[in-house]
């Protein structure tokens, strides 16, 4: 991370619980989180530690109970649900573990979805989607349906979709866990390149130690709290220890 990098995401004292009474589970217990522009930021930790909840809250897809969240200079606390939806549509791209491509649409149509949601005309959206598919090495698969592609190819389509509207924040949930090692590295190369775009931040929640080496910074979580943040030499040692 460059020292002068601007903050992309800042979360302070965020709490989130699910259920009521005896079944109440506290997923985030006053968690703080920071990610800067221009970095590829991994969030790691054991299952159930609150990684995905933190990701959901930061992305504005899940209401949180308390705490402040600022994304790309906008305080989410002050926004209405519809404003948060519009904000997500404009500034955030998503990559999911199970790809979540719509199986009845072609790859081009899937990639064009965020553009269409942002008001781009159909022809322009499909033209740009085709360019992005070319960029991720799937230029010849545009008219195919996602089910006709391998897992790695589907995730590349998902990356193209996430980047189509040029978001400044890319939120990735276990993007490599469903892929073999080689394909996982190809996907991470793409995400790493995406993170180098000016003003963009890529946050990845992962269990996959194979991709730790791509991180500019790693936030480790445990039991709903931030355990430690690693960057620079400590990060290199952490990566070495997980090889």
């Amino acid at each position, binding site marked *: 991370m460059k020292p002068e990098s601007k903050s992309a995401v800042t979360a302070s004292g965020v709490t989130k619980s699910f259920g009521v009474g005896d079944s109440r589970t506290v997923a985030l217990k006053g968690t703080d989180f920071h990610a800067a522009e221009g970095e590829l930021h991994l969030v790691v930790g054991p299952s159930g530690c609150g990684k*995905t909840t933190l*990701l*959901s809250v930061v*992305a504005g*897809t*899940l*209401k949180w109970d308390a705490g402040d969240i600022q994304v790309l200079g906008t305080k989410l606390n002050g926004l209405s649900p*519809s404003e948060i*939806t*519009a904000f*997500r*549509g*404009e500034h*955030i791209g*998503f990559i*999911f*573990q*199970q790809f*979540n491509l*719509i*199986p*009845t*649409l072609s790859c081009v*149509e899937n990639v064009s*979805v*965020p553009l*269409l*949601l*942002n008001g781009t005309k*159909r022809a322009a959206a499909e033209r740009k989607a085709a360019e992005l598919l070319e960029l991720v090495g799937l230029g010849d698969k545009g008219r195919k349906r996602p089910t006709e592609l391998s897992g790695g190819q589907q995730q590349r389509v998902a990356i193209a979709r996430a980047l189509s509207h040029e978001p400044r924040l890319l939120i990735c*949930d276990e993007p490599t866990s469903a892929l073999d090692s080689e394909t996982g590295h190809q996907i991470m190369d793409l995400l790493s390149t995406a993170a180098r775009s000016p003003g963009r931040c890529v946050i990845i929640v992962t269990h996959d130690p194979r991709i730790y080496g791509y991180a500019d910074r790693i936030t480790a979580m445990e039991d709903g709290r931030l355990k430690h943040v690693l960057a620079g030499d400590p990060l290199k040692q952490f990566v070495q220890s997980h090889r």
Partner: protein
Amino acid sequence: MFHLALKMLMGDRAKYIMLVGGLTFSALLMTQQTAVFQGLLSWTTSHLRNMRAPLWVVEAHVDYANETKPLRDTDVNRVRSVKGVDFAVPMYQGILKARAFDGSDKQVMIIGLHGATLFGRPPQMLAGNLETLRLPNTVVIDELGVQRLSAGRKKPIGLGDTFEINDREARVVGICRTERHFFGYPYVFTSYDQALQYAPRQRKMLSLILASPKPGVTPAEAARRISAETGLKAYTSDEFAKVTVAYIWKNTGIPMSFMTTIILGFIVGVAVSGQTFYSFVLENLRHLGALKAMGASTWTLARMLLLQAFTAGFIGYGMGVGITAAFGYAVLPGGQPPFVLEASSLIRTAVAIVVICFFAALLGIRKVAKLEPAVVFRG
């Protein structure tokens, strides 16, 4: 986004076919049964259209057009004497047995027309001359009469052929076209005097009186005066049709049985389409959640679901109504079952399909509105 919504709908072939099939069946059932019911109702008043008189005067206790309660012969003159009545003529109507060539008995509706004027004549002559009815033992029969009374003949009964009505000779001098009678009897037109010869003797033989108002007097006004001055019941043709239809609605199980089928069609539509569309939404919930995460508002998703539901509805409606129309074209030449497809029936079915689609979409919209986009992060 809306073209993608349609692709999402049509891409899931099994659900799409099920959805459109359910709506087609529903539209078919509602439209076809309504058309048959309307056709049946039109038969109840066909009698009025087959004789086309502006004023119908009947005994005070007659409830509908196909009912006969005899009048006194002098009632004709009482009606003629009412101010505003241009003319009034006696008419006989009754169901008698006719013997076909092979010896079988067929029930026929005898209509005895006033000999001098032949007022109440059939709407369309296909062969022969109606004026010939003034000759003794002559009749004009309709196409159904030709069909029924030709039993045992090498060729259909025609002009000059004879059969028996109540053991009396009836010579065919004309073939006419009529609308089918509610009870399915063939029409046999003859003169009033001849009809009295065919019919078994009773104390009162006059069935009803056909009349016409004077120029400048409306049929409704003339009917009101006749009723007031004679104590008989006088109707305009439209009023008598309404009274007849109302009687059928109130006193027979026909409307209820048709309504039951029509309501079942609606329920089938709601159940099949609602359930199918809801399961379509459930299966796509993850994708809809992903769209929501990517910035699709609930309103955008709601419009997509409405478009999907109404597209299926539009196609199902078109197919259902199309099949109904094809059914109509197939059965109309044979005259059975009765079939009248009115614009109002099409509109009612369209409204029902809109309600079904709206209900189906609403189930999905409710689910989508409650959907947290974070659902896409759950494994």
